[in-house]
């Protein structure tokens, strides 16, 4: 009977299997030990300990590691194998071979990361000269070289330089333009991680760090997000050296300094700090260097990440550094006395300091006549206000200040809203969120269907929403104009800032009308007035008022005589009082 009962009980009742696989990332050493005990010791214990061990353990391990390269090749080989986990790391290549120098043979090995080096270069310019038995390495001449000889009182005094294998290999067997002799394991690892190959030779406690980088990289292409009509069509790439060369191409001056630094304890991402010696303020340069070099982070992958780490106030959503993918724009800023930061792996460089006016200036402006540029700038300022305030104003006017609307228009608005069942706040938020969704979907969708998403979203959904009496037609116009205005803002981050704050203004406008919007504007003004980017007030040159700098409007090209006042540059004048000397026939230099 009991058996029958159990049978039915088991038949209908489902019991969880208590031995279900359960995994949590262990946080402490105790947790890790418990996890190891429960799962049994794994084969990759030594590897996982590197990641899960406490910081102290890692530090003590690092301290116990040897720092200098050993003379014994085997020890070096074993150490490097352990260091790079070659048993599980598939792209680490170690090529052992026999090196011939002065007709003697030495055991050696090359080490590099596959995919980061140029294999042809290694074959032709590293392995061939070292391995092949040619005249250079078979020659067994004098072991010591006489540097100078002098005869005094029939005594010959010779100054002899002893034969040094390291020098010999470096000078005679390495037909490479960039080879470095290192003797510390840390430097060896940096070289390998950077895409170089390293050469270990038996009996020599020196390693040759040979530059054979050969990454697969994108070629210099058009900038994707900062397009201009008359300007340069080159954009930064992901490779730092290509980017620095692009800047060098724009600024043909030896005073352009490009200082290299590495950010990230683990990633050691190469970064470059560029400025023009003799123009940029030393304090500004030092401040940038100070911030970039004092980042206690494990890894850095993009300039966007770096921007957030070095900006003055991280809690304010306003962009505080200019991000540009245009070498000509970066060069212009450098010539003005600012500092440019380039991060390897990111096609955007950062410019410090940044002011509000920079975010409504397009790189196209310098290529246009000042009248056209000014018209566009005014349009962009208008776009900023529309993108920020238009929906908030609409909601405030329709809820509190109806007298502003002409009577006929008011009737039409009332009539169009008559069939809409929702309150205006819901209506406007719904449309704004829909618009943001369409924008986000259009950006994330594959490029072939991205535009289609936008069209479907904008036309079909908008029209359908009006037909279904979900929103009023006027609101569609308001949202569309706001969207267009936000696209007209040149800087992506600044546009984002406007999009975000728009929602705040919608709420303020709904609850308190113009009073609410005024509160928002006043607080926003307070924040912006308080903001500084690398020591430069954000609202320069208007607050505090300074001279010698273009504000909202451009002056004619011949009148732009001075550099920005707030940058306190070393060289204030950027062109002569009368730059167009050809106008004065007496001053003309005929080039003869």
């Amino acid at each position: 009977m009991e058996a029958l009962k159990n049978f039915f009980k088991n038949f209908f009742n489902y019991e969880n299997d208590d031995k279900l696989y359960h995994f949590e990332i262990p946080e402490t050493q105790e947790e890790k030990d418990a996890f190891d005990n429960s799962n049994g010791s794994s084969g990759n214990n030594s590897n996982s300990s590197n990641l899960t061990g406490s910081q102290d353990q890692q530090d003590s391990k690092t301290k116990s590691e040897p720092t200098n390269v050993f003379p014994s090749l085997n020890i070096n080989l074993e150490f490097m194998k352990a260091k790079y986990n070659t048993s599980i790391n598939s792209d680490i290549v170690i090529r052992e071979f026999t090196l011939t120098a002065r007709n003697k043979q030495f055991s050696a090995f090359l080490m590099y990361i596959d995919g980061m080096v140029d294999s042809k270069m290694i074959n032709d310019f590293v392995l061939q000269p070292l391995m092949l038995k040619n005249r250079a390495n078979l020659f067994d001449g004098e072991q010591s070289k006489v540097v100078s000889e002098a005869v005094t009182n029939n005594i010959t005094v010779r100054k002899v330089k002893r034969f040094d294998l390291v020098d010999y290999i470096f000078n005679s067997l390495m037909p490479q333009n960039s080879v470095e002799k290192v003797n510390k394991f840390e430097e060896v690892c940096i070289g390998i991680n950077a895409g170089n190959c390293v050469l270990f030779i038996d009996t020599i406690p020196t390693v040759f760090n040979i530059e054979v980088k050969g990454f697969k990289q994108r070629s210099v292409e058009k900038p994707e997000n900062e397009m201009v009509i008359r300007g340069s069509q080159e954009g930064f790439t992901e490779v730092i050296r290509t980017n620095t060369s692009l800047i060098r191409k724009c600024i043909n001056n030896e005073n352009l300094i490009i200082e290299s630094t590495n950010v990230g304890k683990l990633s050691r991402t190469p970064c470059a700090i560029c400025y023009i010696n003799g123009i940029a303020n030393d304090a500004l340069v030092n401040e940038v260097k100070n911030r970039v070099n004092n980042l206690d982070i494990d890894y850095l992958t993009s300039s966007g990440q770096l921007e957030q780490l070095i900006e003055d106030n991280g809690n304010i959503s306003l962009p505080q550094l200019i991000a540009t993918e245009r070498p000509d724009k970066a060069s212009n800023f450098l010539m003005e006395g600012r500092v440019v930061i380039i991060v390897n792996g990111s096609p955007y460089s950062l410019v410090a300091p940044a002011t509000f006016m920079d975010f409504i200036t397009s790189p196209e402006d310098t290529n246009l006549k000042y009248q056209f540029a000014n018209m566009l700038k005014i349009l962009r300022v208008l776009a900023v206000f529309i993108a920020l305030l238009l929906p908030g104003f609409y909601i405030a006017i329709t809820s509190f200040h109806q007298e502003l609307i002409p009577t006929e228009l008011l009737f039409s608005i009332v009539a169009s809203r008559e069939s809409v069942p929702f309150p205006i706040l819901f209506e406007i938020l719904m449309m704004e969120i829909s618009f943001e969704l369409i924008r986000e979907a259009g950006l994330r969708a594959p490029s072939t269907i991205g535009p289609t998403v936008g069209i479907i979203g904008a036309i079909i959904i908008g029209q359908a929403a009006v037909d279904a009496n979900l929103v009023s037609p006027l609101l569609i116009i308001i949202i569309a104009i706001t969207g267009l205005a936000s696209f007209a803002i040149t800087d992506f981050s600044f546009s984002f800032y406007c999009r975000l704050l728009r929602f705040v203004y919608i709420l303020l406008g709904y609850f308190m009308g113009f009073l609410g919007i005024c509160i928002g504007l006043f607080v926003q003004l307070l924040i912006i007035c308080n903001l500084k980017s690398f020591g430069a007030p954000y609202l320069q040159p208007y607050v505090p008022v300074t001279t010698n700098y273009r504000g909202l409007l451009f002056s004619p090209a011949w009148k732009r005589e001075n550099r920005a006042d707030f940058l306190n540059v070393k060289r204030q004048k950027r062109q002569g009082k009368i730059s167009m000397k050809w106008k004065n026939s007496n001053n003309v230099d005929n080039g003869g």
Partner: protein
Amino acid sequence: MDLYKVGKIEAIALVVIVMLNHLVLNLPKIFFNTAGCAAWINAIFVFAIALIFLFIILKLFKNFNGMDILDVSYFVGGNTLKNIIGFLFIAFFMLIASALLRDFSRSLNIIYFRNIPIYLVIIVFLLVALLANRIGSNVIIKTTTIITTIVLINLGVTFFLTAPQFEFNNIFPILGKGAKEIFLSGSTNIFAFSGFCVLYFIMPMLKSSKEFNKIAIWSIVISGIYLVFCILSLLLSFSYVVDAYDLSPMYLIIRTTQFGKFLQRPESLFMFFWILSLMSYVSICIMFSCNIFQKITNTRKSQVMAYFFTSLLYFGALIPRNISQFKFIEDVIYKYFSIILIFFISMGILILANLKYHRKNMKLEGRKLNEK
């Protein structure tokens, strides 16, 4: 509170904004009540007196470069006088800010927020001002510079918009309520230039104290021009009997203007900028009160006092129970308090300070002569 060094334009903005706010609200009404349709003559007369007064002040301040009225009071009467003057000015700032805040909030309450209690409207302004003071005085000054510019443009546009409806017959009879009212009783309208109170404190805040003269002259001239233009445009637009309405005359005049067929009632747009202006004004009053308090008590950080002064302003703004009490505060207490404090007490201290200064100098010279 760390003292932020202000430039020329920022300093001018600080002085001008004090006058502009009163101009937007109740100042023209007081001029009309005094001189009738000759209010514009009264405004010019007061402007002239203010200029004379300004030159006297500049002359008196000449020997006290880089000092404010508190330092001068200390020089004259030591800590006692300094403290008395300090507390009087704090009371003055609290009074003018609370009166204006109450007046403006009442207008907003009548026009837009009939269902919302006035104390909530006042709280909104005070919270913003408190936030501004917590952020810092430099930010308030910078923000004021922007807002003053906007309000000046805004009032300039008002003159142009009202121009088509000017009726020049409105200025007749040319002497309005009579010469005695214009030039004798009307002289008390000098209180319109209450921006002088900022001038008394701005000297140590300046980047260059040599600019003080320029700043003072420019700010009073701008204030005076706007005062005269405002009163003229009001007078020419409609009869001076505007007291029938319980709203700001500037609001009423904007209400009658049209901008083509599309903008027939643009007053809300102007109100928008005036709200910003008032926020800035209240922040400035709290900022100066904190600064004065810091100076007389030698406290290191007076920003915490912003909470106290904000609360004081709140209760001060709620004190008047009805319009008659409120009018009494605005038309009598504020008017005569500002005249006595700004134009008599402060001036008296400056004169005494100069006398003391010269006497000291003479003594020193006498000693030198004796030594020789």
